[in-house]
């Protein structure tokens, strides 16, 4: 059962990946549809950030997130915005959260 599930899951994943690259080439889609699809990056990335933080969202407290996590998230965002360096952003994110959790 496990092997069948993983094989079929892999096949589904691969079919989705090649669907608009190889099976139905995207240049056959209308330009408007393509422009909307190009907007998918900010939508997907924002949803991924939100989903990864969602388990820590407070309910009924003053702050949206626990203070160290909120501060580390804001700091990470600022570093990403100002430097646009992914490696530095990740290091600052992990380092600041570790430091803040140690202090508070």
């Amino acid at each position, binding site marked *: 059962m496990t092997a069948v599930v993983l094989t079929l899951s892999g096949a589904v994943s691969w079919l989705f990946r090649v669907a608009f690259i190889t099976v139905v080439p995207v240049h056959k889609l209308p330009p408007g549809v393509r422009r909307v699809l190009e907007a998918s990056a900010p939508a997907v990335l924002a949803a991924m950030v939100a989903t990864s933080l969602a388990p820590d969202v407070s309910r009924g407290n003053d702050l949206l997130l626990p203070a160290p996590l909120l501060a580390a998230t804001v700091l990470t965002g600022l570093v990403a915005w100002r430097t646009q360096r992914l490696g530095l952003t*990740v290091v600052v994110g992990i380092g600041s959260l570790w430091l803040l959790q140690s202090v508070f």
Partner: protein
Amino acid sequence: MTATATAVESGSGSAAVLRSPYRLAARDILPVALSVAPFGVVIGLAARAVDQGLAGGLLGGFAIYGGSAHLSSLTLLGAGANLTAILATVVVIQARLMVYGAAIAPLFQQQPQWFRWLGPHFLVDQTYALATGRADLAEPSRFRRYWLTVAALLTVVWLAAITVGMVFGPVLPASSPLDFAATAVFIGLLAPRLASSRSALIASTAGIVAVAGSHLPSGTGLIAGVAAGLAVATVMEVRTR
């Protein structure tokens, strides 16, 4: 390419345009690969929990090549779900790959046939964001070298992380600041794309809806967030005509 891509490129420095695609790929993917490693360890733990052998765990990791879908499959298997329910969940979670494929398709257009069929296997959130964020990959052979290097390095780290989870799982700490790595990667990839008010509005909508739906099962909140963001993009597209 897009204004976003230009922003990312300008942040990388003009020398990046001339840099070898192999070095460029390694520099881009290594922090990303290390950041997803904790997730790979979790997958390894879940594979171990359903009594999978190391070979099976690694084959599953390579075949699905996506943490959320793989983890959901293993979790549902462990809970005794049937094949149809598991595949339906995988379909929902992986549906976004079609959107990624459509967005990244121009880079695959002039590639050899083998690459057009096999290359997309390595399309995941992070590789999609990296490749679409670069303005210097338009030349087909340059993109192919970049993509294959990214794929190889990410695969090695991903499978190594799954191995660590399967072999050393019981002695690993349950939680640490390293868990924040994946979030930091997504923030790092998102921030340069928020230069325009259009992108900011799309991202804000997606983020708010994703949080609101985060209690829903099987990654539905994530998909709802993406759908809401694309809906906003569609409305803006219609209004500009």
